[in-house]
């Protein structure tokens, strides 16, 4: 089962390594990982997506809690969370097909950030479904490169995530 883990950690050198090391040490692949500062300068938030069964997931979170540098762990797997990711697509675009691609980008409210002789670079944000939908459509034109930031997530309700 896929889990979105949101981990509030001390903003200090080596902390990311402790968190990811602990997860990978138990044999789990991290599908997506982001880290960045929070509203509190002494804290960072790590958002990691891992696949694990319930028992293993419980062990991971309990072990993460034991790390001195970890303050709080939230599971944002359920629907009550907003998930976002930023993707850059470099799509093959001969001059005569640019219009079609730009149209698709507009439908998804994505931005054209660079235009080359034979390619377009498009910046898009959204959840997994939207980004996958764009990717499928761009594939018909040929995708030269995709770069993803990794997912971030936040709970929808007023409860602090």
């Amino acid at each position, binding site marked *: 089962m896929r889990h979105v883990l949101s981990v509030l950690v*001390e903003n200090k*050198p*080596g902390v990311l*390594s*402790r968190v990811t*090391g*602990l997860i990978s*040490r138990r044999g789990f692949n991290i599908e997506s990982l982001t880290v960045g500062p929070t509203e509190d300068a002494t804290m960072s938030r790590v958002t990691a997506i891992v696949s694990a069964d319930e*028992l293993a997931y*419980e*062990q991971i979170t*309990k*072990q993460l*809690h*034991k*790390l*001195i*540098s*970890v*303050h*709080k762990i939230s599971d944002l797997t359920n629907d009550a969370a907003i998930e976002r990711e930023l993707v850059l697509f470099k799509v093959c675009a001969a001059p005569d097909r640019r219009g079609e691609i730009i149209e698709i980008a507009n439908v998804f409210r994505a931005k054209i950030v660079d235009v080359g002789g034979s390619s377009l670079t498009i910046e898009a944000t959204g959840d997994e479904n939207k980004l996958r939908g764009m990717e499928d459509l761009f594939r018909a034109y040929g995708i030269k490169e995709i770069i993803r930031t990794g997912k971030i997530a936040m709970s929808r309700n007023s409860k602090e995530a």
Partner: protein
Amino acid sequence: MSTNLSKPAAGASGGAADLSEDTACVEGTNTEGATNIEGTADREGVARVEGAADREGATMTGAQAVIASLEAEGVELVFGYPGGQAIRMYDALYDSVRITHVLARHEQGAVHEADGYARATGKVGVVMVTSGPGATNTVTGIATAYMDSVPLVVITGQVPRAVIGTDAFQESDIVGITMPVVKHSYLLQSTEELTRTFHEAFHIAKTGRPGPVLIDVPSDLAAEDMVFHYPTAINLPSYRPTYKGNAKQVRQAAERIRRAQRPVLYVGGGAIISNAADELRELAELVQIPVVSTLMGKGAFPASHELSLGPIGMHGSKYGNMALTESDLVIACGVRFSDRVTGRLSGFAPRAQLIHIDIDPAEIGKVRDPEIPIVGDLKGILAAIVTDLRKQGFEPSTGPWVCQVSEWRERWPLYHPGLGDDPAQIVPEVVMRRLSEKLDPYSSIVVTEVGQHQMWAAQNIMREVPRSFLSSGGLGTMGFGFPAAIGAAFGCPDKTVVCVAGDGSLQMNSQEMATAAINRVPVKVLVMDNRCLGMVCQWQKLFYQGRYAHTLLSDIPDFVKLAQAYEWDAEGVSSPDQLDAALDRMLAAPGPYLLNVRIARDQNVYPMVAPGAAIDNSFGEIDVEEGAVRVARCEQEAIGGAR
């Protein structure tokens, strides 16, 4: 021959010899000998360190602040080994009149010594080593302490901050290397955070579930001037161990215990760390609950007690394992359901409900889901359960159950005199039992290495009080026992410390004989010499068709001569009639003493549960009802090759 016991260290001849040896290592100088002499602070121009209180607000170097911090934490002993990047810290340590430094002969030895000291005393063990190889040599010791929840603070020298990451001479990323085996670690980045780091490190090491904490100190930081302020408070919002058990769960546990017909207390190292022996005994006696113990829990409950069922698991007693198998309620106290205890999980206490008490929430449900989990400090939780039972009134109903386990204990004893004893050979169980009889359980500590001798010791040496049996339980570190015994002897100078070793294990840290000799540590080493790696041989015999792949050692070295080379007293025995007197001589010897006991190569540890089998499915146990013979192994039950 070292017979002068009373005076620690400062052997003049020893000191000189050391200096020439140690200069071979880095540009480091050696201060051994002198560090242990009182009055070293009288040297000109050196401030006398009287303790942190007088140093408050004083300007000093980072290195001096490291030592002042240790003094502020009440540290009396540091085990270590100097080197280039640790010189400044050692130079500051040279001035301390409060801290005695014990120079090991290998950094791994230093960590095990600090570990043994910590296990024997309950205090935090402190290690100081240099960067690079000095630091990496501590890894096995740190991992050993981590697995067995032993509080250590390990201070490593590091290359100067400016060259970290450049593959500088004797640089190693020790914080990275040890990350999976420390409770926490620090790479000091500035002198401002130095004292807070040390205060936190000691707090983290000894509170909650204890464990090793590493502090990496760059040498340029140690040279920087700073103003010393030692914090009194701890500000760790993310680290708040739960001590008090949830009241509702405690009530539920008491209620469940009240209804139990066949309860068993399953006790581990947590009971010793929590200092819960009295509460444990009170609960066991009040409800009449038989007590089984893991290797780490040995000593938490008196072996002579009628409710004691001794060790369990792969080489546990048949009666202990049977009690778990037939139990309807297992009360797990500070245990982690090690695979060496549980055997095949589905066969472990299959008819029992489980109450699991542990201070580490990650242990609860890790291996088996309990019906009643309680997170917190065992001592207080057991006391609360007892209070609840007393308050609500209680009629013990476990009489028939206690009778049943007593019958099992009579039927399957761990040892039966004369059974299979070759009159020409020394029987390992007999050695352990004779040693056990000669030791006062209240004023002795038995430390083991790892292997067959460890199991024989666990089965046959009676321990009555906590912290009197030290062994590497989780990591199973050969080479742990001997240095740990030295550390225990430093921590408990009024106790007799005996290390039960194997000829394989002892060779892994035999260099520490120098540490014992020079410091006149009166540690006794009893070598169960079978000239092979007995435990592995046993598996090869049972599961690998007797193919003894690289497990047969030899008569080399002559351990008696080896010990004598370190100026120890030593002797060897090989026939049963020599044993008693030799044990007496060993225990009466005033200094370090090695007794080499030659035993047969083909001895196995019994009973044994084959890997992958249920724990009631053992073989090799003595069955008195069958005329006191060892029960043969049923071939198809053994799962060869499984770990």
